[in-house]
């Protein structure tokens, strides 16, 4: 976690799931309190479930309530799959990099 110019970068590694959401929730709340802009890097997310998805939605909503910016970036294939399955990328509004399948 590092912050430059009030932009805080958070990296979520490993699971974004029911097992990690409680901890991640706190982390995100802390970040939103500390900075005006939070960027969450999802490139290292290996697994994601509905709870993780819910957390993303809730984080967005929290940021909106506090009038701050929260961005998700570098969506990993696991994240990408879930958002695609639920057609939620539009709702979250972050640009998604469509990876070419190698």
């Amino acid at each position, binding site marked *: 976690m590092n912050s430059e110019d009030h932009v805080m970068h958070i990296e979520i590694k490993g699971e974004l799931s029911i097992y990690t959401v409680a901890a991640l929730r706190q982390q995100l709340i802390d970040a939103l309190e500390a900075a005006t802009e939070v960027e969450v890097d999802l490139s290292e997310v290996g697994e994601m479930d*509905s709870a993780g998805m819910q957390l993303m939605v*809730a984080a967005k909503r929290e940021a909106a*309530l506090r009038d701050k910016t929260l961005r998700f970036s570098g969506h990993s294939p696991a994240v990408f799959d879930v958002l695609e*399955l639920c057609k939620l990328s539009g*709702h979250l509004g972050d640009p998604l990099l469509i990876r070419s399948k190698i």
Partner: protein
Amino acid sequence: MDMDDALQTFIVEARELLEQMEEALLRVEQMPDDVETINAIFRAAHTIKGSAGLFGLDHVVKFTHVAESVLDRVRSNQLRITSELVVIFLGVCDHLGVLISRVAAGAEPDEQTRQASEQLASQLRVYLDAPAPVAEPAPSGSAAPLETPAADGADTDNWHISLRLGPDVLRNGMDPLSMLRYLNTFGQIVQIVTLVDAVPALSELDPETCYLGFEISFHTSADKATIEGAFEFVRDDARIRIVPPRSRVSEYLKLIDDLPQEELLLGEILVRCGTLTQAELDSALREQRGEQGGETGSEAGGKSDGKSDGSEPPRAMLGEVLVEQQLVQPRVVGAALDKQKQVKEHKAAESGLIRVNADKLDEHINLIGELIIASAGASLIAQQTAIPELLEAVATLSRLVEEVRDSALTLRMVQIGATFNRFQRVVRDVSADLGKDIRLEISGAETDLDKTVVEKIGDPLTHLVRNSMDHGIEPAAVRLACGKPAHGTVRLNAYHDSGSIVIEVADDGGGLKRERILAKAIERGLIKGEQQLSDQEIYNLIFEPGFSTVDQVSNLSGRGVGMDVVRRNISALRGSVDIDSCEGVGTTMRIRLPLTLAIIDGFLVGVCASSFVVPLDMVVECVELSEQEARDSHGRDHLNLRGEVLPFIRLRQLFDVSETPVEVLAAESDDERGGHLPRYGQSSTLLTAEGAAALAGDPELAFLLHPVQRENVVVVQYAGRRAGLVVDHLMGEFQTVIRPLGEVFNGLEGISGFTILGNGNVALILDVPGLVRRVAGSESRRNARAVSFVSAE
């Protein structure tokens, strides 16, 4: 799948369904109360409508819908099947066939078909309007049914799944995402809207509570139970509504009603899912606001119960409401279940089958033909080199090739039953036209034969059946006078017989009138008055062009066109047709066809340097023709085979094979062409006058009476008649790939095709049926002549 491919499949399936429908219609006419058959008809119509809808073939859907509505009434016992109704539905069947053909041709329906659609539809609507014991809630007014699907049912083929997950779902270890993924394994999520509005902001979020909901538009051929299965584990924990495809708008309306979302929002979601169109939603909402109890009483009751508690129906109520709806809407549920059942049945029938383009199959068979020739070449070389290992390897190879050949040929085999069943309709229509009561009996429907043959046999068979019905079976009065039952019977039968398939068309009518045929033939100049003919030959005269004994021409047959065409068509398939008839008892016409047109087991024989192939199935035995026996035959070409008279034919003489020593067989013998002239004439003094006459016509015969070497007789059998083929040497079994002869050799007698030997030489395939006929023909003529000679004396 490519859309074109899918369309092709639709066309093929639709045609099959129409065939089934027709068959069922003919059956139901006999047993109007057979529920199974009525259901089969309904299902056929229903499936065609459904599939046509998928391809946007609106005119087909519209037309079929009317038919289906009438059938639905029949099914629910509001209408009884009558023969008038069957007639109309046979018309519907035919018309659908026309519509499908137009689709297949890529054409829009023209004015004529459109009018036909309209006409049939209006005929059907009469039945829709008939008073029924139970009032139909849906259409009113005669023009309404056509508009029904658009006005009343949502125009979609997708299921709609509405899912609200309970708060504990995640805590219980379930992941809704995996359910969605599971759905994708047996169908396709066409559209999904994830409802995240209930998800609070982070600070209020209990990250382990589930706040999610989904509205899913789902395309699948699975049934409701399967879809419900996907949500099995959350059933107690979530509210699940599954609305079958093409449900009535009111169903969706209830969905909107029952779920605790803003009604407009949910409506919009439905529109976004593509489940409802905007227009449908608007009218639904109007209806909802305007007339609360607009539908039947019980429904309205269920609804107002839900509504009475204000805008948020209590959760406890929801389960009950759902159950109640299932109860109130048994029709919708029934229809959905029916569709699933039918899809399932269809699947079951199809599961073991795979559709293959016939061209691909032909190509495959062609290649196997090449393979056989190549392997024959290999085994020839192996024999020349005489390396034991190579011989062994080649032997294995040949055996495998043979097995591959057999299995490839069976791929093309189809049962003749389907072709036979088509005649139910023909017999029904023709007997109605003729005003005769004629029944069709079918046996041997499971007999297999080559698909190409099946396709081509339909027309000749139709001719024969019509002919039997028109000319064979007498009017009821005549029948009764003869002591026969009033209703005539036409029998179709098929069976295998020595490498051929035999198809019989038999009737119990008046039989052929020998004298009349004879008189007519003489009148037409087909035969001369003094000619002596066997019964067989006389009967076969009806296959001569322009021959008809019936004085008045009916619109079915009797113009004298047809029977000659029948024989030509059958000959083109290397088959033959003959007639058995007994005056006053009936006629049996027997078509014989080769089982396959591609590859046969052959028996290779040699005459001088030439090779010939006899279809092995037709070979009975091979015997030696000793000099003594040849001499005993006295030029009459007959042999005493264990006390039986066997007419034989000399291939050398028949094909005028040039005389070359046997040793040159393998060598190039072209330069020997012409050979040395046969020695003949020496023995003419020994012959009878008749023999001498024959000798004068066939000089080689004289030589053959003094064979230089031993000859063999291959005894062949066809259509119950035997004949011997005299050849020089027997070379054994040979897998024969039949190649047709070129146009130039079309009229060639005694040869049906050619094949290529392992060494690259060409062998001609003998037309055994033709040869047997020829031998037997000359035989019976000679006998007739002898008889007349005796009687003259």
